[in-house]
């Protein structure tokens, strides 16, 4: 069924694709990089949205996974470059598919204990404990001089993807765009699946879920881990985009930024993260060009959205969300 929201989504998806294509023909590769940034931030936010939008889990520590993904890319690339094995004879690699696999796997493994402990808490405590875990990892990252410490880790060259010249802006953008679209499809499938039904019920009324025999904890834990894995993939791509893995990827500002992206676009909406990312980068670029104090206006806009436009950008464009 074609709703107004479907049309808006299609427009947004095509717009994101069109910008870099047009930019390349006009010989302005900078805008391709900007579009890639939007794409990757949107991907990270889609990951968070699995936990937040579907599951109602306000994770203030998702930057941890973004950073782990980024550092996975950086560390593997560095070891490949120095031709030094990591440990147990495992060697570095500059192959993106392998790097992504590692980033996703490590994020999943880290998210499991973090989720298992955090999900024993609720409400404000959950928000705080996810923040605490991310802070732990942040301080760990800046204290580890082998991988750059506070200065972060550089990737001398962008990693490789078979048959694609990743060093060029447009092909790399297309890889990221593909990843984003796949993630959005994954979100759509999850939302409509049995798992999604249980997860959304856990958000709406966990007493009810337990009363019919489904343990909310298990459902939420799986959602949390899946969510971490997608955000981790985004982190790996981000490190490749900037050719740099920075400890700020772990910071609580980053966690806050991811939540902001979702809210700006519209919480729980399929294209909410992407709409939010576009709006955010637009504000950063346009207002940032006028004043260094652009974040002041971001704050005002965010405040306005939270107080008065709770459906976010998609709420304004596509009307109220339809539920099952």
């Amino acid at each position, binding site marked *: 069924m074609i709703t107004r929201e479907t049309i808006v989504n299609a427009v947004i998806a095509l717009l994101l694709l069109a910008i870099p294509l047009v930019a390349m023909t006009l010989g302005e590769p900078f805008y391709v990089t900007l579009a890639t940034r939007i794409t990757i931030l949107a991907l990270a936010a889609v990951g968070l949205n699995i936990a937040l939008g579907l599951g109602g889990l306000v994770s203030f520590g998702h930057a941890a996974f973004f950073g782990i993904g980024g550092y996975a890319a950086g560390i593997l690339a560095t070891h490949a470059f120095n031709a030094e094995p990591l440990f147990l004879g495992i060697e570095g690699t500059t192959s993106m598919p392998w790097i992504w696999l590692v980033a996703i796997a490590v994020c999943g493994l880290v998210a499991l204990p973090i989720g298992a402990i955090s999900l024993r808490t609720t409400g404000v405590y959950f928000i705080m404990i996810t923040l605490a875990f991310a802070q732990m990892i942040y301080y760990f990252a800046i204290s580890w001089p082998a991988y750059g410490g506070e200065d972060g880790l550089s990737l001398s060259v962008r990693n490789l993807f078979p048959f694609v010249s990743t060093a060029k802006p447009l092909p790399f953008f297309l890889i990221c765009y593909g990843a984003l679209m796949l993630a959005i499809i994954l979100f759509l499938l999850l939302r*409509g699946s049995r798992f999604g*039904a249980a997860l959304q019920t856990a958000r709406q009324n966990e007493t009810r*879920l337990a*009363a*019919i025999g*489904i343990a909310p904890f298990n459902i939420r834990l799986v959602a949390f881990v899946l969510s971490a894995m997608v955000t981790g993939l985004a982190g790996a791509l981000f490190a490749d985009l900037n050719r740099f893995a920075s400890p700020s990827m772990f910071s609580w500002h980053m966690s806050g930024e991811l939540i902001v992206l979702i809210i700006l676009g519209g919480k729980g909406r399929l294209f909410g993260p992407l709409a939010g990312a576009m709006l955010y980068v637009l504000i950063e670029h346009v207002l940032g060009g006028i004043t260094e104090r652009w974040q002041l206006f971001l704050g005002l806009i965010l405040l306005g959205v939270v107080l008065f436009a709770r459906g976010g950008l998609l709420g304004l464009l596509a009307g109220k969300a339809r539920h099952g």
Partner: protein
Amino acid sequence: MVEPVLEIFELRKSFGALKATDGVSLDLRPGEIHALIGPNGAGKSTLIHQISGSIRQDSGTIRFLGEDMSGLGVPQRAHRGLGRSFQISSLAPEFSALRNVMLAVQARQGSSFRFFRPVMGDRSLKEPAMAVLERVGLAKRAHLPAAELSHGERRQLEIAMALALGSKAFLFDEPMAGMGPEGSKALTKFLDGLRNEAPILLVEHDMDAVFALADRISVLVYGRIIATGKVEDIRDDPQVRRAYLGDAL
């Protein structure tokens, strides 16, 4: 003597100095409706919470289908067939009545970790759910969000979900509450037909319904069962009359 479906033995629960449950023993036999009545504050809700698993008893045992439930949480007990409805309707408000019941069907099938196949196109969920909704009389309202249903319809939906679960025993906590006379009559008739599928432990204040439906009645006062027996015996019991001072019996 047939094995009881649900057996509660010497259950005790205190909140500080307050003895909410003070050595309660009762059982639920196959095919019966066992009503639990008592004045306000008697501890009926606390007892239901302990049976369903949301509160842990201080001492005493709860056996369901021969199995000791003590270590099990709410989801596990529900999964083993203990279905309940809530005193204050507890549903997924954004989901339609149909999706709510489909979730119960899904829970019964034990298949919540399926990530890809869309639920709305799944006949193995939709058909049983619609059948149950037909049975409780909500079929015409199936696609409305639960938040938009009337109070009575929400009670019906709660019962539908317990049905869809394929429960082996029902715990109904004041299902008549807030229903007008028409609704109560319809629900009474419905529950009457339900007893053969699975026995019902019915907590109720509505005495008409209780006397019409109950095979046995237990009277709970200040956390203790002061009488258990058939309708006539309870009606004539002087202790029960005294406990209900002022209440029409």
